[in-house]
């Protein structure tokens, strides 16, 4: 059974000045699945991820061609970026909680959207932390600084912060690369439980991680998508020789 298509990119090219970082990407990403992007460093997988909620806007001299259709609309066209980002949340490589209390970190997004009702905020904070499996660990110190949490807790806080916006899609840019194995495992478990509610797209350096958690996997190389398919197929019987070489560790 195929899920509904959430993102559909058509001939997406991206240039950093003269350098072409993405070459004609065509991809359909489906709802309520975990899609993983793998590939060697500098292959464009993070760049592509950042296209999906237009975080590349922050970088000067980026030029994007082609279409990214999100729920029927091209997000590079005339859309409200702020609205897009509330619907497509993002978790970064390094945990980046703001230097404020745990509570304020979660409440930040809703507050920015104009939510002031204290009771509603309380509910959102509790729900988000619960869904991010962090509530039990932090419920007694919601007003303490978020910088006092461990790395793994900080990253789950960042996930909770994203969930608080009630997004449709969560983008994760190597969310576990700065964490130890136990914290990584917790985040991976979390992703499995979150995928029922959200569409998750994850960039990862670890092929094992992609194999463990994702439904579909895309292999990037030199700005191109070499292969995009069901994860088991990619890892057991890839169509392309280069994918096989990468998976088996012959380069990368």
């Amino acid at each position, binding site marked *: 059974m195929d899920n509904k298509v959430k993102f559909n990119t058509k001939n997406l090219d991206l240039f950093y000045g003269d350098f072409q970082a993405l070459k004609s990407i065509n991809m359909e990403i489906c709802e309520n699945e975990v899609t993983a992007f793998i590939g060697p460093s500098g292959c464009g997988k993070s760049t592509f991820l950042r296209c999906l909620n237009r975080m590349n806007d922050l970088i000067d001299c980026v030029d994007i061609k082609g279409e990214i259709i999100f729920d029927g609309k091209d997000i590079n066209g005339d859309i409200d970026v702020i*609205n897009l980002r509330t619907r497509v949340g993002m978790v970064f490589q390094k945990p980046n909680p703001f*230097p404020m209390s745990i509570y304020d970190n979660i409440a*930040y*997004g809703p507050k*920015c959207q104009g939510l002031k009702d204290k009771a509603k905020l309380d509910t959102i904070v509790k729900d988000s932390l619960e869904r991010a499996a962090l509530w039990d660990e932090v419920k007694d110190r919601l007003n303490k600084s978020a*910088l006092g949490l461990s790395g793994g807790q900080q990253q789950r806080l960042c996930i909770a912060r994203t969930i608080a916006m009630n997004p449709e899609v969560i983008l994760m840019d190597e969310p576990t690369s700065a964490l130890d194995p136990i914290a990584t495992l917790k985040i991976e478990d979390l992703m499995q439980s979150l995928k029922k509610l959200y569409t998750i797209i994850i960039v990862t350096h670890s092929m094992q991680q992609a194999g463990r958690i994702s439904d579909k996997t895309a292999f990037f190389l030199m700005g191109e998508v070499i292969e995009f398919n069901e994860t088991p197929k990619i890892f057991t019987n890839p169509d392309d020789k280069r994918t096989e070489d990468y998976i088996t560790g012959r380069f990368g």
Partner: protein
Amino acid sequence: MTQKIKDTIVKGVVYLATGITLCVLLFIIGFIFIKGIGLINWNFISRDYNDTTFYAFVQESNSPTTLDEKVQENKSDYDKKYETPLEAPVYVESIGAEITKVLYKNYTTEKEQFIISYISKGSPLLSAVNSNGTSIDVSTDFVLESVNGNEFTGMSTEEVKTLINDQSGELKIKMVEPGGGIRSNIITTLYMILLSLVVALPIGIFGAIYLTEYAKPGKIVNAIRFAAECLAGIPSIIFGLFGMAFFVVALNFQISLLSGSLTVAIILLPVIIRSTEEALKTVPIAFREGSLALGATKLQTIFKIILPCAVPGIATAVLLSIGRVIGESAALLLTAGTVAQIPGTLFSPGSTLTVQAYYVTKEEGNIEMACAIGIVIIVIVIILNILSRIASDKLNVFNKE
């Protein structure tokens, strides 16, 4: 071997140079403290620079008829800095105070005068009022000049006592509140700091926000940066000339607190822009990304995340600015004047501490007073230095992670 000797000699020269730098500092600070410390006391801080003459209306009374011997021994010293007693103090019953004839001598004048050397507890002087009926604080060291129109000039202390005791009813005493202090300069300096910061701080901070958060490299940014550098390089006397031509003359603000503070505000701009920019740059990009990815607008990101993180840096900017205003003299000389008074309105002149230090040195040759002002300034500068160190340590928190 020769190389070693050479190295030792060069090393010696380096030590010598460092020694000279340190000695110069110690020498300057030492000079200022030794010269000025004699003047530093509460009167110096709390008095105005100029003498103030006024009439005090005192209800004559006979309450404490004689002065308690014990009190006489314990009474506080009067201002010995400039005054030498000429005759023994005499107690005047009708005003409940002791007066002394002294020789007053400072850099510009030398004269004989009668001062109040002690005021007893029940003295009617304590409930004295001025011609408007408002009460005035009469204290020791005030100079008595006349009573009910009878001048004291040339009299002996006993004669003055008799003269005062002979009057009846309400006494109209002409008094002089001695000056020589820097209260008005301190207050003018505070006004100047406050006003110039009110103008320069928002402009500087918002300008820095534009440069770090919005500006794309190009001609506009280059122009702004070049202008800020130029402003930092222009000597303060040129700012003074500009302030005089623009604020004082063209806008007709006169030589005033307003002209002075607006001129100083321009001087502060590059300082504030630069340190705010540095502070904004230390805020990690990850915070900006995190905030934007949550659907916050750029403005929300700036005001809720970036600015709060940059607060210690902005505090440094404020401290640097305060130091700059306190140190500023040439520009203020031309735009705010040298009148040692508390400016009553934005359009009245007033001299800050440094301008006053210049004025007393240049016009009166009173190096002692300049040094005493110098002590006050240096103490403030040291405090500001320490505070800004604390602030910049706070800012470095992000970088250590």
